[in-house]
């Protein structure tokens, strides 16, 4: 999901930074301060997940966990993802500071969309509906993220078409893995600590 510095064109970077800033502002406004530990926990999980790489398929890619962040945080996924990307940008140059905005958007927008599309279904008392929706939430979040990264490359220059296609293909295994991870997390939380999900539903 990380794009190296110096690849993208300036307009793409600027739009990404602006959208990232706006999303983070919305997220901070919606943030219930009693939930800060939960946000930090999920940000840390997303940070660690980006080191777990999936050696399946044509290229190695890593976990993102933005589906779970979307389910549990809604708009707050923006600040959470920004916080987890920041140390990666400065310590490891996985992408740099200039692409921070773009990467935040690429990861957080699908999380928010997944939240709006599937949170009602996940809340359903029927285990099948709830399970299906949580799987789809994790799956679609990665699908949209990889499409967004591919889109950024295509917008920068036509020569990136092959690379863009490659990104989406390479993330197909990740889509399934994250679908199952999201499914597992939602089922676990529903049984063990349902209020952790309920808080989000009460305050979208």
């Amino acid at each position, binding site marked *: 999901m*990380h*794009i*190296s510095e*110096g*690849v*993208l064109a300036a307009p793409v970077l600027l739009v990404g930074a602006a959208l990232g800033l706006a999303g983070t502002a919305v997220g901070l406004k919606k943030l219930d*301060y009693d939930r*800060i*530990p939960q*946000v*930090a926990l999920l*940000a*840390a999980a997303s*940070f*660690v997940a980006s*080191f*777990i*790489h*999936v*050696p399946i398929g044509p*290229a*190695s*890619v*890593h*976990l993102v966990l933005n589906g779970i962040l979307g389910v549990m945080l809604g708009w707050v996924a923006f600040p959470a993802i920004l*916080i*987890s990307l920041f*140390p*990666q940008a400065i*310590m*490891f*140059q*996985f992408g740099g500071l200039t692409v921070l905005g773009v990467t935040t958007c690429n990861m957080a927008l699908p999380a928010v969309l997944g939240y709006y599309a599937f949170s009602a279904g996940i809340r359903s008392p029927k285990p099948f509906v709830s399970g299906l929706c949580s799987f789809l939430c994790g799956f679609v979040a990665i699908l949209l993220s990889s499409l967004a*990264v591919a889109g*950024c*490359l295509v917008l920068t220059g036509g020569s*990136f078409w*092959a*690379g863009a296609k*490659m*990104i989406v293909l*390479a993330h197909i295994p990740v889509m399934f893995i994250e679908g199952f991870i999201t499914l*597992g997390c939602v089922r*676990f939380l529903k*049984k*063990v*600590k349902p*209020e952790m999900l309920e808080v989000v539903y009460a305050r979208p």
Partner: protein
Amino acid sequence: MPGHNRRAFREIIRRRTNTVLVAAALVLIWISPAWAHKVFIYAWVEGDTVRVESYFGGSKKVMDSPVEVFDPSGKKLLEGRTNDQGEFSFKIPAQTDLRIVVEAGMGHRAEYTLKEADLPAGPTEAKGAEPSQGRSSEPVASPPVKPAGPEPAPAVTIPSAASASNLTADQVRAIVEKSLDTRLQPIIRTLAKMNEDHGPRLSDIIGGIGYIFGLMGLVMYFRSKRK
């Protein structure tokens, strides 16, 4: 509520132990020391050739990817592709800083700047200064020996030695440089690699987690003061 939770939790532990274990094992398998998304590139000089090697974090080679070489003003000097060992080499095109960029695809790229100081002196400069000095000093030193020596034997050997060294001053230099290159190449490689290659270590990851929770603590501290 807490009682219900505890009961539910115990039930899950009982019923889902296997699932949880399998999931944990899978996740652990995926954690491998290869950091897929950083591209490393380094370059070193061998004679008049610059060798470039590029690989993804975790030693996967960047194969058949375009490499471009720029001068400091951004003018493209040459381009090429890495072979299936992730290597690319080219003759030094100009005595200047060389910015070498590899595009590894999927939005990954890396660059390495080879400083002018790392390049060997160009052929024109070298001939202008040092070798001529070396050549002039030897013939000057040897002729005075010849008439001074009374015996013929040393008089014969010294000029022959002098003429031999005279003939090969440039060649000796070339030979020495060549063998130094081969001898030093592993060291230069390692140095260039060390310069670039520091993937995330466990301490970095733990540091990152600590930073996130530190931020959390900071925010909570200020919130609690306000109340």
